[in-house]
């Protein structure tokens, strides 16, 4: 286990470094002059130079890159103050430390993605298993058909409909908003329930189908038959033996889907006017704020890596063969 963690940490660090490099050099390669963007309307050449210096744009590219990356580990000093590690630089635009900005926005994205994740895993796997259990029945048809239709929709299409029906027309619910979980768990849930459910809907369908298919497949497995031959009840066999195995493909796909989840978060944030990492990414890209973009990309990758490690731990938990090898 210890070795596993070490290996994963090293791998993650390398990945993050590479992603940082790709992001940085792509960004720098773009034909935009960040200093003149930050310079504003009354931009004299001297001022431009000053801004260049202030933003560190006068330094050679590799120095800029190294400063940024090393800042993550040891922190950096800016004219406006010390930026403690992990320092993702200082926004060209707002002058805030990117890490602080991300930390301010991240709880929302985390709530949204993890909330949606829980919803779609529960609903998706639940519906899929139910469909497999009652294979061929009305329940099965509704679950599979419904999931198909819903998966063809989009967040930016379902979102406004949900808002219109639940908020604007009827007033049943309040406008989506973020309340910190630690402050008011119920408010947190209520405030984000519409975005979470809408976002989850898009993913649910896929997982319903997958859960159903892999459950049906598992039911045909010999060890499941063995369990029945032992006289274990159908339910027991279904929910113990078959279920366990059916989770593996689901977890695999989940690992691949995590970055899509983050993308879903972006669209959801935009659709519901919420302020999370996704909006930050859009702002960073649009305002050509290199540190912000770098920070968000790295943080996004970090988030994906963490969730991937969790997925692998889940793997090991589900399948003892993985655990020991």
């Amino acid at each position, binding site marked *: 286990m210890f070795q596993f963690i070490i290996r994963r940490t090293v791998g993650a660090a390398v990945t993050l470094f590479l992603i940082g490099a790709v992001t940085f050099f792509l960004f720098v390669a773009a034909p*935009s002059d960040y200093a003149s963007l930050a310079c504003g309307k009354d931009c004299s050449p001297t*001022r431009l130079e000053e801004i260049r210096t202030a933003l560190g744009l006068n330094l050679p590219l590799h120095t800029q890159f190294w400063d940024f990356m090393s800042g993550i580990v040891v922190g950096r000093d800016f004219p406006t103050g010390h930026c403690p590690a992990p320092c993702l630089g200082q926004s060209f635009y*707002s002058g805030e430390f990117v890490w602080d900005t991300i930390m*301010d926005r991240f709880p929302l994205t985390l709530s949204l993605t993890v909330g949606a994740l829980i919803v779609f895993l529960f609903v998706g796997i639940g519906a899929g298993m139910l469909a497999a259990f009652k294979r061929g029945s009305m329940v099965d048809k509704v679950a599979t058909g419904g999931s198909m239709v819903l998966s063809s929709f989009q967040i930016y299409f379902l979102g406004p409909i949900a808002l219109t029906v639940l908020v*604007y027309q009827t007033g049943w619910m309040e*406008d989506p908003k973020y309340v910190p979980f630690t402050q008011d768990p119920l408010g947190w849930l209520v405030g984000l329930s519409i975005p979470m459910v809408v976002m989850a809907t898009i993913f649910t369908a896929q997982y319903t189908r997958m859960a159903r298919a892999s459950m049906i497949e598992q039911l045909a497995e010999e060890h499941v038959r063995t369990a029945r031959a032992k006289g274990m009840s159908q339910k027991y066999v279904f929910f113990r033996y078959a279920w366990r195995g059916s989770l593996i493909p689901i977890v695999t796909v989940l690992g691949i889907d995590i970055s899509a989840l983050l993308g879903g978060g972006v669209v959801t944030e935009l659709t519901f006017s919420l*302020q999370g990492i996704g909006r930050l990414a859009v702002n960073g890209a*649009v305002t050509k704020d290199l540190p912000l973009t770098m920070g968000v990309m790295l943080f996004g990758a970090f988030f994906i890596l963490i969730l991937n490690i969790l997925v692998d731990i889940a793997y090991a938990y589900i399948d003892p063969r993985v655990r020991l090898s």
Partner: protein
Amino acid sequence: MKSFNSRRARAIMVVIATGSLVLTGCSENKGSSSGKDSKKDQAEAAVQSKPVTYGDAAASTGPAEEVPGAKPGGTIEVYQEAGLSHLDPGQIYVSDGGQVANLLFRGLTNFEEDGKGGTAVVGDLATDSGKSSDGGKTWTYTLKDGVKDQNGNVITSADIRHTVERQYAEFIFDGPTYLQTWLSGPKYRTALPDGGFGDKHLPATVLDTPDAKTVVFHFDSPRPDLPQTLAMPGYGVVPEKTDTKAKYDTAPVSTGPYKIAEYKAGKSMKLVKNTNWDPKTDSVRHQYVDGFNFDFGVTESTQTSRLIADQGASKNAIQLTGSVESTQIQDVVGNAAVNKRTIKGYQPYVMALNFNLDRVKNKAVREAVAYGVNSKSLIAGEGGAYGGDVAPNLFAPTLPGYEPTYDPYGRLKTPQGNIAKAKEILKDVPAAEKKLVFAYANSEAGQKRKVAIVDALSKIGIEVVAKEVDAASYSEQVGKLKNPYDMYINGWGQDWPSPGTVVTPIYDGDQVADGSPNYSHMNDPEVQKLIKKALTQEPTEAAATWREAHHYILEKVLPGAPLWYTKQLQLYGSNIGGARYSAESSYIDVTRLFLKS
């Protein structure tokens, strides 16, 4: 300059249109005429373009006149799509910052509107709108008693001097430059490089503070507009002791009725009452509500949807500088109950297709384009009749000297473009000159404009090379002197109701520089002569001179084809009281809002 919108607002391109989904599609849309409204708007515009009066000490004495029915308490929700680019008053030039500044900061003077179109400049920190002498070359201001900042420090003339002098510092770069230029010339920064933070100050021959309560400005030519200049949010006072230079931009010290309790850049801001603000010293602002909650990142379409629905917290909400999403205008205007909650009026902006005169040298081409462009389709992209009106000339309806019937290119008669006329003009023009590079911001709005421009100009035989420019840097890109484009759409609005704030910045040859709003790079001696003349004239004479300049620019030079005037349509929640349009800001007047319950 009052640029059309903040950079970030321009930059945030993603607009997700939301809408309530009631299927109304099966009923026939016969089209309703909003022509009546349009005429009403024209009349209102005439009111809006009344010249500003200068208020005396009596008019400048607080407290402000009570808003009928106003009651205290409650918190107003403020929706805004993009975050604020600045909170340092010295950096504030654009409207969103201006709106916030009206709640937080006080300057020497301020605008006071009577709601009937009359606008006066009154003393804010000063006892009156200013006393001029020496033919308008010297202006003297006396500070009111008992004006304190949020920390309880009394505002003195030293603070005013500091406010002016810090504008010379390098870290102030986005704010207005009128006052500095008038005091120290175009290269004003060299006059006081450290911005007065050291021992060096402006000489008393320029800016004098004979005692703690008196400030005297000395100019080398008459500056009759100074009271209006000083009313700009960019000249809001910055108390010297608590100035933190660059850091001030996120944590400024308040002198107005509210102060910042919490600010998360780009996300949220909470304003609470500033207990050190004394209503008796302020003739304009009120302090009815307990505070304002600014919610940034709420897209215009979400703002509109929420306010139309008017549920829950949205009842207490206003739009700061956002307007009704263009796709949802009909839902607002078509519903009497919702329409009641709107604020309408002309904005000061004239949208024009500016030519790069260094590249498009053939006036016939410019003329043909001016005849050929389709204002109507462009306006359609802005939301139709409520988004804008066809602009026949370069003066907005809010500008004193606005001429509604002055229409040299027949825009009013053929708003969709006079194709025949344009073709005729282009008859003898060689093909090479008929290829024009059109730059547009790569945003949703920019793309829409591109479609309309390309469509219209290709009809008259112009080959348009549409070149997208990154939305965030659009202004910078087309503002470059050596830009590779032939034409681009820019909007311009007055800084205060005087043609001087329009003609000077955008058509004065002296202003041609990188990043200057003189996007057409126009440098015409005749115009410069007229500008010089008008700037020193008394208002009535100046009006005639400006008019002459206007006609000359549009007919003889044609640096840009007028396209449309922008209009304001904002919505507020049903529990908001005292809402009215501010002709000065062209948005909802935030100083007099209260909650009905």
